[in-house]
């Protein structure tokens, strides 16, 4: 058998394989590049970038929970100007590494301005619009839990960029498909699912929340079943492609997401407990396709089968 095809076209972005790294878990790429060649990735999604630099929340910002973590980083980032000047050039050295920039803001206007600024820079393949960050007081989650606000943010971003726009949705909602349909209508070219689930952990010795921000976002293997379900539900409803994430730590996990309907996948928390997770998933995916005699990774996408009982 020939080598299987791993390339996918995601919302017009050509990815040599469907494995990306999830925003906020991989910085701007530099740290992990000391361990392995970033060219192995299908693409990189960088940490959220905002109009102005952000300080983020006070520490502690992370807590371990069963098979998961809570984080409340609070979007610490150097701001869009510094990103373009100080961080983007490093990534542009990689010839075959699509760079997707995750953007956030307090107001719709913020989103529009960041989008505009990034669109004038060179070397960016798409914008991922974070309307789902649970760790900031303004904006963030509020945009992602209301279909109307979600629509407005995406519409404003679309109006200010020619880049493909991926809406990153929050799982903290009653009906994910309602928000998904709304951003699709607003012109989103793809959907990222899922951001973190709102959670909390308490230190029973001090009687205080472990996170100084009290609540934080839950991610990691613990959330995988919820993420797979949301990808599956959403894939039934929308026609734009889905970028699946939430607890992916192995190629097997990634395949679950693709069968559920994701066209590409992102590795987040797993980077923390296995810094080689992403390239291992690329290799594992290839091995799986070979073993199963599948010529093209696209054949997995939404290929879920049902027995008569379903």
């Amino acid at each position: 058998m020939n080598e299987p095809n791993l390339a996918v076209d995601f919302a017009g972005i050509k990815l040599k394989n469907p494995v990306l790294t999830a925003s906020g878990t991989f910085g701007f790429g530099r740290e992990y590049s000391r361990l392995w060649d970033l060219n192995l990735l299908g693409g990189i999604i960088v940490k959220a970038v905002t109009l102005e630099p952000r300080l983020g929340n006070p520490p502690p910002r992370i807590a371990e929970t069963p098979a998961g973590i809570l984080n409340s980083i609070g979007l610490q980032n150097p701001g869009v100007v510094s990103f373009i000047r100080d961080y983007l050039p490093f990534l542009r050295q990689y010839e075959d590494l699509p760079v997707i920039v995750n953007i956030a803001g307090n107001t719709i206007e913020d989103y529009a301005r960041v989008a505009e600024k990034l669109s004038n820079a060179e070397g960016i393949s798409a914008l991922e619009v974070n309307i789902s960050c649970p760790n900031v007081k303004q904006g963030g989650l509020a945009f992602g839990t209301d279909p109307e606000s979600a629509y407005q943010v995406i519409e404003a971003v679309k109006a200010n960029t020619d880049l493909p726009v991926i809406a990153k949705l929050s799982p903290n909602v009653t009906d994910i498909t309602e928000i998904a349909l709304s951003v699709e209508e607003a012109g989103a070219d793809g959907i990222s699912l899922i951001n973190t689930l709102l959670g909390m952990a308490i230190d029973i010795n001090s009687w205080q929340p472990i996170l100084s921000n009290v609540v934080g976002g839950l991610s990691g293997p613990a959330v995988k079943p919820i993420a797979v379900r949301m990808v599956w539900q959403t894939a039934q409803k929308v026609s734009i492609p889905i970028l699946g994430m939430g607890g992916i730590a192995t190629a097997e996990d990634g395949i679950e997401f693709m069968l559920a309907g994701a066209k590409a996948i992102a590795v987040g928390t797993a980077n923390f407990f296995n810094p080689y997770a992403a390239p291992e998933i690329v290799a594992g995916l290839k091995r799986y396709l070979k073993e199963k005699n599948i010529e093209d990774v696209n054949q997995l996408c939404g290929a879920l089968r049902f027995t008569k009982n379903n």
Partner: protein
Amino acid sequence: MNVYQAEILTSEKLGQLYHLLIIKQPDIALTAKPGQFVYLKGGKGLDPLLPRPLSIHQLNQKEGTIQLLFQLKGKGTIGFSKMKTGDLLTVLGPLGNGFSLADEGQNIVIIGGGIGVAPLLYLAEKLQERHFKPIIILGFRDKENIVAYESFSQLGCQLIVATEDGSFGRRGRVTGVLEEIISSEKIDVIYACGPQPMLKAVQKVAEKWEVENCQLSLEARMGCGLGACMACVCGVRLEDGQFGYRRVCSEGPVFNSREVLFDE
């Protein structure tokens, strides 16, 4: 710096509270500097999920081994202590900046509190190798909490142990001892590692006596261990005087005490 599979050569229970592991990892043993740490995980399981940061307590370049000295606290450390000789640990390291060594002729005090003594042994040895004569002050709650006393006493440096209840060595806190020393001789460099209240007290002493080179090794809950996730920050006064956050894993764990802003 890389990820390695390292074999456990020795696993030794030190009383009820502490544990010592000797693991084989020549690359780290060859390159690690005092104050650096490793990010350690025992197998591929998801419980616990994250690696745990542990300082390099001591290393042996010839044998390619490193020593990890730790307190039994929760799932992670207790899990490590139950692993057996021959078992493999996944080790990311060496990480962090480590202590910067003093300039020739400077007078040095090393202060450790509780398990905070862990990174100080390798530091002290390195300093001795370079012909410094550091004074070492180690503080513990009580006699039962003392750890690594033997190793430090074998260095041949001046060693002062204090316990809060006086059950061993001097009664009281390490910072009391530090002030005594500073008030009688000029100290150029302080190295400190220990619980936050101790570090705060050291910071105050350094400020009061204008010890410019006071290096504090901090702890913080970590995500990636590499500098990518911004989880492990501590508050600092930036060069421009503004408040900001720095990453303990990659910009630390050692910071100059003048820049650290605790509780912010």
